């Protein structure tokens, strides 16, 4: 249970800003800034944060769709071999992508509208195992059954499916190569609540059945609480708090996490909320040398504004705050 499948160390993804025809770019956006964490085998690792916090970029870096600026992502493959994805070439990545798959946010745009289900779900099998014809359609039909779809849907086009069914197709495609790690980028955000629950249950059942490890990227705390074992909270490209789900929801250590949890709507008009109100997203200039959250933090001091906080370990939580455990 506790052996590590994915080790992310000091990961940076900086995008240049500005710069035109002749000019050099002057500034960078630190979408992912010095992130480190481990993902254990068979756990569900959640990444939450507001939009713009860099969680999707982080997911795409782990998938190696984007090439990170620096850092390392070490994946332990099925055969026990450890590979650093940041140093892998195109051909090697194509092989690694069999062990590590992705489920996309928008089931509408992640399925090519011009291909049939057989082709969409089966193209990785056709490529990696050289399956075709009857063998391929049998395998795809089996995959459809595993995600709760009828095998007769094989010859249909994506436009014949509802949103929930399409996301099931996306999951079937991810399962095709029998991966160990699945990165789900906002996999249920585009669905309505009743369908969300179905898909989450499906994901949990599949995890049991195939001993999968999930990296689950989301912005909805209720969803994350339901499915994740551990959660990393991201703020402006950094992981500000990483803890077990239960601990994080019971006793959040970072002021941002607290504000985030506070923002979850409570279905009771008499309950007052807003104890930990934060100001609107401040302008995050390049020269922010202190804590990135300082401008919005109700507890900020001069120390916060001038010095970047070190990573602290407080009661099994990793927190990025000067006053972690004190406030």
């Amino acid at each position, binding site marked *: 249970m506790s052996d590590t499948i994915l080790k992310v160390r000091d990961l940076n993804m900086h995008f240049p800003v500005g710069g035109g*025809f002749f000019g050099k770019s002057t500034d960078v956006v630190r979408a992912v800034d010095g992130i480190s964490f481990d993902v254990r085998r068979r756990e569900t690792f959640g990444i939450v944060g507001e939009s713009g916090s860099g969680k999707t970029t982080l997911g795409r870096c782990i*998938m190696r*769709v984007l090439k990170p600026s620096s850092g390392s992502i070490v994946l332990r493959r099925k055969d026990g071999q450890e590979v650093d994805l940041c140093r892998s070439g195109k051909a090697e990545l*194509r*092989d690694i*992508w*069999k062990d590590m*798959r*992705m489920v*996309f*946010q*928008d089931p509408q*745009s*992640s*399925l*090519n*509208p*011009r*291909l*049939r289900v057989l082709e969409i779900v089966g*193209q*990785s099998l056709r*490529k*990696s195992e050289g399956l075709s014809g009857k063998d391929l359609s049998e395998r795809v039909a089996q995959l459809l059954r595993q995600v709760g779809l009828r095998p007769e849907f094989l*010859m*249909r*086009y994506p*436009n*014949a499916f*509802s949103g929930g069914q399409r996301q099931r197709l996306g999951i079937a*495609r991810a399962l095709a190569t029998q991966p160990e790690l699945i990165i789900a980028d906002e996999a249920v955000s585009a669905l309505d609540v009743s369908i969300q629950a179905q898909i989450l249950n499906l994901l949990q059942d599949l995890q049991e059945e195939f001993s999968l490890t999930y990296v689950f990227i989301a912005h909805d705390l209720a969803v994350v609480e339901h499915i994740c074992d551990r959660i990393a909270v991201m703020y402006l490209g950094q992981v500000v708090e990483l803890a077990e789900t239960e601990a994080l929801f019971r006793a959040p250590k970072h002021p941002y996490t607290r504000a985030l949890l506070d923002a979850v709507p409570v279905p009771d008009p008499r309950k007052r909320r807003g104890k930990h109100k934060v100001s609107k997203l401040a302008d995050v200039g390049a020269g922010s040398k202190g804590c990135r959250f300082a401008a919005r933090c109700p507890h900020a001091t001069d120390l916060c504004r001038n010095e970047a906080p070190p990573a602290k370990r407080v009661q099994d939580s990793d927190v990025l705050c000067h006053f972690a455990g004190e406030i």
Partner: protein
Amino acid sequence: MTVETTLGPSGTEEEHTPELLGPWALMWRKFRRHRVAYVSLWITGLIYFMALFGDFLAPEKVDETNRRGIFVPPQGIHFLVTDEDGSRSFQLHAKALKMQVDRATMRRSYVQDPDKIIPLGFFVEGYSYEILGLIPSKTHFFGPKNPRDIVYFLGSDRLGRDILSRIIIGTKISMSIGLVGIVVSLVIGVSLGGLSGYYGGWVDTLIQRLVEFLRSIPTIPLWMGLAAAIPLGWPPLYTYFVVTIIVSMIGWTSLAREVRGKFLSLRNEDFITAARLDGLTDWEVIRKHMVPSFSSHIIASLTLAVPLMILAETSLSFLGIGLQPPIVSWGTLLKEAQNIRSIIEAPWLLIAPGTMIVIAVLALNFLGDGLRDAADPHAH
């Protein structure tokens, strides 16, 4: 339109069918709902039929001159003949004409000869030709029953040649030579636009600056210069062929931009990323996912480019730097109507080919519009 709710209680396959349609079938359904475009498709089809079977459709030989039929106005088709005993019977015919010359002004005029009619019919015998250049034949779709009679349905020109036949024969050149140019634009446009959009960076910059440079060159002087640079000894069709290819060397620019834009937007689509993650190589992603996604747009923009090519041919021929007589095309026909005298004395020289060009260009434009709308998933 909600598709789920159309499922009947029995859930039979018939009720599923609309959902099972593929993207091309859906496009076709949408296209058929566009009435004007659908009619235009038929007209375009007819015009190309005319181009293929021109000799079959043309009543007269295209370069047959007739000294006694100069500037004959269009002749009508009549249906009933009155016999000597006063009874009327059905017989397609045209009235025979007699030429009269006014001694004072030296002008010709034609009056109907009341004693003589020219019987007309379908599938009549005429000059010999080969169907599609293969099967020898003498049968023509419509014309005078006696091969020695001549009827000018759309009038005749200064050499007594039949305008209708010339328009029909001219279709072949006018509708086909543009296609060659379009194929050249297509090949260059898609490959350079694709390179530009897929790789980006300096490749993109280089190609885009080249496009901007080419677009900034004024075209008519360029064409004139090129036409002058081509050796005079070449046969006129060959010359024009070269000119079209040169014209399309510039014509690819807009297509290249369109393709580049499509590549740029597709590159960020999730299904492209998904295909890469499925282990497909760059080339496989382009071939299997990207090209099919914009092929419908390409077809639409090509359809819209054909009328431009036809108009270019027409205006080049009109200016005298495109096709030259004796080649028959719509442009060279219009060139016959280039002076005031023929416009006053024989306006059909201008009206007949002009109408044909307008019909062809409009039909192709509507067809292209319809295709584009049908291909666009966001259009209503």
